[in-house]
């Protein structure tokens, strides 16, 4: 198939993005040269990176990966980044803990092994550092000097921090009513932070228009014109989970859905590992998790539809509050292809799940993590997730970012005078 010429404002003729070979339309298959493009000129479908993946024996590649740095750059041969990426100023995210959740497994009746992939351990405390790190390399390759994004909060902080480290200017856009913690965590890195009067979908629309205007010339929007590269960062979750399981696919994996990109890229990552012979090809199921107050993909899954009708979000899980999820149709395809499901939980169940994870495993997840664990619990109880199989739950961010969600029900047990009598009178202690 012919490769179309880049029509965007790329400033580098042949960017060094390692094994990335071209951009390919996920809908119609048309191919384009690597550049700051995100939508197919023929059908508006999403573009994604096509690769010349490594050849050679799986054993050699596995050894090469295992000898790499303890961050996502160990997988550089599978990512759209230059070979010397680890030597450049970057936040070096990834290789977060895969926690074997013994107590949580006992509580939920899971006997096949339950794991939490805890991405709160990233530099700005969410999985967004993975995707932004890839976008920074694309921004460099295309000669962009300003890094930008539309964000529900986590991404704004990740972009601000990554830009600071990379020596780029940043200007990020968020809904004006975000949680205060996320506002501070985005603003502290010194870039420009702009609150837009509207919800995330309004912010996203604004950024899409800015990108076509001279006001946005020379800007790399990580999740708009750099989106094909940015999204690839989520594949590293799949790589790490499999490597940490001993180069083995999990049987079941539960992933939160905002735009749905993360879920689709985890699936892509698993498929690549199979293709490269790094893991044994065996069935796995992918489950998607949404909050009831923003559940367009879950609603479409349950209704048997293959298109997603947008919703107006109303949930405490603001990082997942995307009413018009760009990758929704692909999430439906993947959930159905793998025999998984898409489910949603109420805000009350989200809070309960945040506290369950904290109480059983000492992991304080943000609301998105509460959504994912809440859906996991619901699907186990419904007999949809098999408790006898290996299950991985993805916690995408740190609970410190969404304190409001649990602050009302997470307070001091008692306030007493500094005396043993008062302690005893409060019914505390063991005697």
């Amino acid at each position, binding site marked *: 198939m012919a490769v179309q010429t880049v029509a965007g404002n790329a400033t580098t003729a042949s960017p060094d993005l390692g094994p990335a070979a071209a951009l390919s339309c996920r809908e119609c298959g048309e191919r384009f040269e690597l550049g700051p493009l995100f*939508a197919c000129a023929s059908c508006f479908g999403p573009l994604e990176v096509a690769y010349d993946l490594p050849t050679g024996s799986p054993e050699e590649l596995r050894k090469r990966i295992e000898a790499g740095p303890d961050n996502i750059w160990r997988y550089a041969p599978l990512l759209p980044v230059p070979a010397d990426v680890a030597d450049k100023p970057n936040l070096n995210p990834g290789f977060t803990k895969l926690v074997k959740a013994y107590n949580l497994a006992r509580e939920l009746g899971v006997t096949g092994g339950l794991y939490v992939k805890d991405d709160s351990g990233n530099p700005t405390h969410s999985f967004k550092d993975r995707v932004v790190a890839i976008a920074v390399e694309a921004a460099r390759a295309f000669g962009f000097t300003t890094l930008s994004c539309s964000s529900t909060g986590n991404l704004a902080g990740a972009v601000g921090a990554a830009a600071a480290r990379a020596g780029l200017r940043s200007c990020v856009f968020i809904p004006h009513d975000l949680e205060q913690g996320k506002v501070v965590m985005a603003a502290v890195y010194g870039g420009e932070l702009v609150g837009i009067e509207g919800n995330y979908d309004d912010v996203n*629309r604004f950024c899409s*228009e800015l990108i076509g205007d001279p006001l946005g010339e020379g800007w790399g929007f990580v999740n708009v014109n750099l989106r094909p590269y940015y999204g690839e960062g989520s594949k590293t979750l799949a790589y790490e989970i499999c490597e940490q399981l001993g180069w083995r696919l999990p049987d079941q994996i539960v992933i939160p859905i905002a735009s749905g990109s993360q879920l689709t890229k985890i699936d892509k990552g698993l498929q690549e590992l199979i293709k490269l012979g790094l893991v044994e090809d065996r069935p796995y199921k992918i489950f998607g998790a949404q909050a009831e107050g923003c559940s367009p993909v879950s609603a479409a899954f349950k209704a048997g539809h293959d298109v997603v009708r947008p919703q107006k979000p109303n949930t405490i899980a603001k990082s997942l509050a995307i009413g018009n999820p760009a990758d929704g149709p692909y999430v439906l395809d993947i959930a159905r292809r793998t025999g998984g499901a898409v489910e949603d939980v109420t805000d009350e169940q989200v809070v309960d799940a945040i506290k369950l994870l904290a109480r059983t495993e000492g992991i304080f997840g943000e609301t998105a993590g509460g959504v994912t664990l809440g859906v996991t619990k619901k699907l186990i109880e419904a007999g949809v997730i098999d408790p006898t199989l290996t299950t991985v739950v993805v916690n995408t961010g740190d609970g410190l970012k969404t304190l409001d969600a649990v602050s009302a029900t997470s307070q001091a047990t008692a306030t007493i005078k500094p005396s043993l009598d008062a302690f005893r009178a409060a019914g505390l202690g063991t005697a």
Partner: protein
Amino acid sequence: MSVKVRIPTILRTYTGGQAEVPAEGTKLSEVIESLEKDHPGIAARVLDDQGKLRRFVNVYVNDDDVRFEGGLDAATPDGAGVSIIPAVAGGC
């Protein structure tokens, strides 16, 4: 009814590079017909073979997503701003 239509970068080859063009119509389907008359070929990029909005195209009339306002039957009042935007942006 006269409206202004914001054209995304990937469709500007049809509008001679213009980011905003005028069009006529009382509802979105008529506005797209008007666009096609002035900029042949553009309708096929926005609509699929069945004449429906492509699934990765978002269209707004002023601040409203037309999928909440009747789709191609969404009213386009005189002076309205119509924005055509690729749907694949955003998110994680």
